[in-house]
């Protein structure tokens, strides 16, 4: 510490509030983005449970389907779906910030990095929907 500091008046650094993220919307949005990973994990658990039920046989799969149809799980899944979409969108929007910004010595526009991700997401969703609705 520099010597001159000993003659300076005492400074004061206020502590951050524990709920600082409620102060402004951008901070709350950031925390929601971080929290959305919990719901992504929930969907991963659902898929694992589904696979386990599939392997265990028809009766296990039926009881899994009954569990998924309970109101509490339905509400949880609707909330989780919203958060997973929020997670995916914010993640894709961040892609241009962490990718190489130049192709053939020319700077790439942000859309060029983000758009393919949205495109692949849409295409995958359509294919899954076609299978789920037994169209193909």
């Amino acid at each position, binding site marked *: 510490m520099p010597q001159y500091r000993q003659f*300076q*008046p*005492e*400074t*004061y*650094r*206020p502590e*951050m509030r524990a709920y*600082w*993220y409620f*102060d*402004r919307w*951008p*901070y709350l949005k*950031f925390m929601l983005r*971080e929290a959305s990973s919990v719901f992504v994990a929930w969907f991963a658990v659902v898929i694992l449970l589904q696979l386990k039920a599939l392997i265990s046989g028809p009766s296990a799969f039926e009881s899994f389907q009954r569990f998924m149809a309970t109101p509490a799980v339905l509400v949880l899944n609707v909330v989780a779906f919203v958060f997973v979409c929020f997670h995916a969108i914010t993640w894709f929007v*961040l892609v241009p*910030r*962490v*990718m*190489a*910004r130049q192709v053939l*010595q020319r*700077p790439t526009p942000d859309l060029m990095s983000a758009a393919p991700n949205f495109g692949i997401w849409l295409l995958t969703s359509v294919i899954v929907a076609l299978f789920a609705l037994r169209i193909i």
Partner: protein
Amino acid sequence: MADTIILEVARFSPERGLAITFQTFEVPLRSDWMVLDALNYIKDNIDGSLTFRWSCRMGICGSCGMMVNGVPKLTCESLISQFAPGPVRIEPLEHFPIVKDLVIDMDVFLEKLQKVRPWIVRKDERLPAREFLQTPAQLDTFHQYSLCINCMLCYAACPVFGLDPQFVGPAALALAERYNLDSRDQGASERTDALSQHDGIWDCTVVGECSTVCPKGVDPSLAIQQYKLTATKEWFKTWLLPWGNK
């Protein structure tokens, strides 16, 4: 538009105890006044003991950064009329130690800045016979980062810096990247220790507010994410080619 507006100004004096109090002032509301003009009105006409930093009044010196209604702003660039009918809450920049009223201790920032060696580093320190040449394309790679005026608004907007004061922080990291990307610089490896560590780039959680509040359009968040990519590539290189020049 009303003739006056209320300002709630944070007051702090270590002699009066380690706590911030708010004092209310009524100042004229003029369409051409910045928040800084209102503060100067208070100092000149109401309370001469109110303490704050300012200098150029045109968004260049970076001295007059304060929290205006909870958002870090250069007070010389913020029209007071946009906050009408008020009241307007003026506080010192968040996350910094306060010296008096609206004045913060900027040594915290200056120490971080020095750590990242924000100047052109050359391996051969002898003066060259002629100037270094640079193409416009080479200039473009770092130009926006060179616009930083060290106003520290990005630090006040960064919750990571608030929670972990050891974090090197947005401006210092953006300026480090500014020199790393400069074609004349050869000091990238000397900056690695300060940048690629937990208190450096890896502490950043991409809140992104540093870039939003920057009055000069610098994007420190981008600089940090780009350096994360560079640091990862460098790490892979040392792992795959351990005999290479580190």
